């Protein structure tokens, strides 16, 4: 269950990272243990092997653009990515992230103030983002209460289970 506030190590990516890069088509039907090894390999080959539990992705515009495949989100979660902060997201990726309980924050200007390996602090409820090293602070879009609720429950299927009294 994700917290509203957390800190982590940054992996930076540029604009237009699409769902093919996040979930390459040729491994589409493989189990998540296999799929996660190939996440973003066309962009940063060391990412999948070196990313650690609690790391945060900082990206440019249109992160997760492309198809509706949910494995794009599932793979990042399986690798332990705690949150994605981007200038903007592909719409369905953002929906899927909420649906699967992966926190996402839209923050203008974010890509320019983080390098690989920086430490980041994120507050989902207020949208406050801090680069711990440089001290620079940005204000992303706070997640609306409705989305936070789904995230806190652990995703839309957890919400469904709860509603059904399961």
């Amino acid at each position, binding site marked *: 269950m994700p917290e509203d506030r957390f800190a982590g190590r940054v992996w930076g990516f540029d604009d237009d990272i699409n769902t093919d890069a996040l979930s390459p088509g040729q491994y589409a039907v493989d189990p998540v243990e296999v799929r996660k090894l190939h996440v973003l390999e066309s962009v940063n080959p060391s990412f999948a092997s070196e990313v650690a539990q609690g790391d945060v992705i900082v990206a440019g515009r249109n992160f997760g653009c492309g198809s509706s495949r949910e494995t794009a989100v599932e793979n990042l979660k399986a690798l332990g990515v705690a949150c994605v902060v981007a200038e903007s997201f*592909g719409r369905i990726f953002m929906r899927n992230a909420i649906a*699967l309980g992966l926190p996402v924050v839209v923050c203008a200007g974010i890509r320019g103030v983080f390098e690989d390996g920086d430490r980041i602090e994120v507050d989902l409820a207020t949208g406050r983002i801090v680069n711990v090293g440089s001290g620079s602070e940005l204000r992303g879009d706070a997640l609306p209460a409705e989305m936070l609720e789904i995230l806190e429950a652990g995703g839309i299927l957890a919400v469904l289970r709860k509603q059904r009294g399961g």
Partner: protein
Amino acid sequence: MGMTLAERILAKAAGRQEVSAGEFVVADIDLALLHDIFAAQVFDMLGEVGVDRVSDPDKVVVVIDHLVPAPSAEAAALHQRIRKHVARAGIKAFYDAGEGICHQLLPERGHVRPGMLIVGTDSHTTTYGALGAGGTGIGTSDMVYALATGRLWFRVPETVRFEMFGELAPWVSWKDVILHLAGRFGADAAQYRAMEFGGPAVKSADMSSRLTVANMAVEMGAKFGLFAADEITDAYLRDHGGVGAEPFGPDQDADYEAVHEILLSALPPQVAMPHEVDRVGSIVDVEGLRIDQAFIGSCTNGRIEDLRVAADVLRGKQIASGVRLLVVPASRRVLQEALDSGVLATLVDAGASVLPPGCGPCFGGHGGLLAPGERCIGTHNRNFVGRMGSTDAEIYLGSPATVAASALAGHLADPRHLEVTNA
């Protein structure tokens, strides 16, 4: 304050008098679409959550269109699972392999009506905006929730309006218009937003053209790509399902995030170049590039109107040697109409191969894939690396006229240069 089309659709679905952009609503789903890539998985997930029936089977449409006819034993087994799930869930609106592409079938068979809220596990669900319906793509978990409860949460989107003026030149189509918009405004220009298409020029856009434009609204990131319902919508509905519709549009004083005025009169045929849908230029700039394959089909441009334009270009002629021309009707009805009207004979006489109705080579499932180094121009909607086979192939996107003209010439060609021998 008046409402945009998107706001009117979501207000209705949420049972509210009024909603405005930025609000969150829980809305009733009027129709849910599943196709063969995700349907079995969604039904399995429903079972895992302990839901043994969908909330309203009459609001679900299932289509087998991506892998048809099944290219492998695995695909055949997938289809088999889907048929079992559909029967068990009591879903009547089921279109099996060969009936056509989901985004063609839903409008064509009368499932879509103005004002509906429609979700699909497919990004091109925006297509239904052509009829004034709010169609949008969602993932499988959201679909499980929607099927179980009949509802889903939405953020009411801001709307960007495009006011269209002027008249298209001969051989220039609404495919060229939407490619032009993607090139001019960019692939994320309408991210999280609704696009609304209006102005005097849309009055001359037939339903087929509107479906093309709404289909590709998602290539600019849009949640919905909407046209108001008017006489053209009314006539289309009467022809495809029986009951006409009242006009349904935005309020006069609706609040838009931006309004862009677009003059269509001077627009040349457009092509999207490898490997981005928003890398768009005039055909004039790329004319002469040799091609190996031309593809006319997909949910963007596989309708009878599109095949007719191609037949007009190819009538009495032969495609260039060394070029493969694949024609994939968007549905069995389109195929039937092409057969009855002689359009199919014209295309086959010119050298086209006709594939069964479905997605065909559009997303690289099978049937007409590309080798390394090959170049293809197609009427579909995405030209990403590897979309149609080899990652070393190049995909250009254009209108049916441009694709047919290119097949004839053996290279990317401007349809305006054709001498037409109309029968």
